């Protein structure tokens, strides 16, 4: 067991342009702690490094390799890959874990090719047995559990956002400066960054603990306010079916399902959603599913732990006032 404790697991943590450590940090370090010693790599914007390193320690990093990009750096992905390669060479890890985010996927793809290691993606967990590291996947919308491994070398693994419940206890990390020479490979240039206008008080859909989603039965963009009202009482994220998105009730980023966001929250409340197979593929691994639909034959009832056949415009307001009363 002592050998287990020293196995370094390299974890790439993402830092936003404003210096915030991505929420995926906790699950990445949690997964790493399960199979070895979490070693974080942080490549932050100029001036943001120390705070990000402290935040990584609070989420369980035992060691942090830290670099800051030059002020005004605007090259897509390159710094992250070059820095991660340098950290990989220094640490010689048993595995490399990266978020399955847009940025993380780009880094993982380039990193695997550059270091010629096998790549396993969209993992919902990692474990270890006598023969090495086992990577857990949930495929076809959660219909199957698949385990993978690499034949040899260092597995490069992307971890699904919100897919891992493991957490590692806070640590007091050693912080080392990571120096590397940029390879200057051809890359896209970031011309500008526009911060989003979203209400910061509401949790992001991806990785949310609770989700309230609306579908065709909501009927209009105006009436979607009811979905949002319930979400806010529950502190939940807001989602939608493809029909609701295609009908223009809400922006595309709300879409839950096969081609939208996949969620696995503790609680998923489906309002006026029929439960088409592509929608179920994005939410059926939720711990508890609640559905309200006026059609008693709606497919969503087949997988709902609690189903209400009724008009959501009478049931939801009653639910909201009952929950509000309980809070007060």
């Amino acid at each position, binding site marked *: 067991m002592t050998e287990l404790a020293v196995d370094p697991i390299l974890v790439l943590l993402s830092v*936003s*342009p404003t210096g915030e450590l*991505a929420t995926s940090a906790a699950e990445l370090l949690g997964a790493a702690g399960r199979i070895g010693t979490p070693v974080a790599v942080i490549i932050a914007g100029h001036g943001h490094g120390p705070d990000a390193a402290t935040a990584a320690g609070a989420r369980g990093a035992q060691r942090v390799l830290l670099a800051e990009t030059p002020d005004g750096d605007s090259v897509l*992905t390159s710094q992250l890959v070059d820095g991660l390669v340098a950290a990989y060479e220094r640490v010689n890890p048993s595995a490399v874990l990266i978020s399955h985010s*847009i940025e993380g996927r*780009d880094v*993982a*793809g*380039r990193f*695997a*090719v*550059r270091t*010629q290691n096998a*790549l*396993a*993606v*969209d993992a919902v967990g990692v474990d270890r047995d006598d023969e090495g590291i*086992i990577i857990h996947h*949930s*495929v*076809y919308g*959660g*219909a*199957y*559990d*698949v*385990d*993978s*491994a*690499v034949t*040899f070398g260092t597995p490069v693994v*992307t971890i699904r956002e919100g897919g891992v419940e493991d957490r590692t206890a806070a640590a007091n990390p050693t912080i080392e400066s990571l120096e590397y020479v940029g390879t200057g490979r*051809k890359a*896209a*240039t*970031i*011309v500008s*960054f*526009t911060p*989003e206008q979203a209400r910061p008080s509401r949790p992001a859909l991806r990785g949310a603990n609770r989700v309230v989603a609306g579908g065709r039965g909501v009927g209009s963009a105006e009436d979607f306010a009811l979905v949002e009202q319930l979400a806010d009482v*529950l502190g939940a994220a807001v989602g939608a079916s493809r029909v609701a998105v295609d009908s223009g009730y809400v922006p*595309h980023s709300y879409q839950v399902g*096969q*081609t939208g966001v996949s969620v696995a929250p*503790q609680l998923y409340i489906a309002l006026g959603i029929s439960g088409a*197979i*592509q929608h179920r593929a994005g939410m059926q691994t939720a711990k*508890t599913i*609640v559905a*309200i639909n006026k059609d008693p034959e709606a497919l969503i009832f087949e*997988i709902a732990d*609690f*189903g209400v*056949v*009724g008009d959501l415009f*009478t*049931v939801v307001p*009653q639910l909201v006032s*009952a*929950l509000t009363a309980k809070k007060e």
Partner: protein
Amino acid sequence: MKIIVLVKEVPDTYAERRLNLETGLADRDANDRVLDEIGERAVEVAISYAESHPDTEVIVLTLGPQTVPATLRKALAMGATSGFHVLDDALLGADLMLTAETLAKAVERIGFDLIIAGDTSTDGNAGVIPAMIAEHLGIAHATTLNSLEISDTDIGGEREASGGTITLTASLPAIVSITERLPDARFPSFKGIMAAKKKTIVTVDLANLGIDADADVPRSIVIAVSARPARSAGIKIVDDGNAGQQLADYLIQNRLV
């Protein structure tokens, strides 16, 4: 301009998809085989550019089994110029590294100014292949774009980033991937379907591309597969005027609020 579009044959998501529990591979007989919808959108981007730029050639590239030409014809019927199919038994169950290496060799063989792909496939959900190809070829990638502008010398577009949106540009040659925000694919016209029958699909194997699938390199392999038990329905009530209250009680009792 020479544009390669990466497309993929996938099990249709309009029915339950199955994995073979012995091999971990997709059960190909369980579903209709279709072009992945996001790949069709990528084809649409390329052919709408070609319509306004007559000197454009659009090649659809895929690797997959012998059923692929039938699905590839749909892209040709939409208006792509020709198809390129990498067919080899050794690709059955290919991992991401072998897939990326194969596609990189194929695009090198075809030659290109721009490669367009969908952001993620509905079956693999990986979304890493474009960056892997870019690394193999030493070109820029711009992935998961919600908008795309193509000029003679570069591409530009927007994508989501943590806390906002970034605008990107890259010089050609480059590889991009697009999201569902781009326009729907057109339906092939009758004329297009007839024309597609005469279009060429080049088929090559791995040896032809100089790839050894059995090379002694690390591979990702499936070691276990199990079907998750189907969810069963729980309590179902019909609203008698009190369902909102009952639901609130259920959530509170189960510590869900």
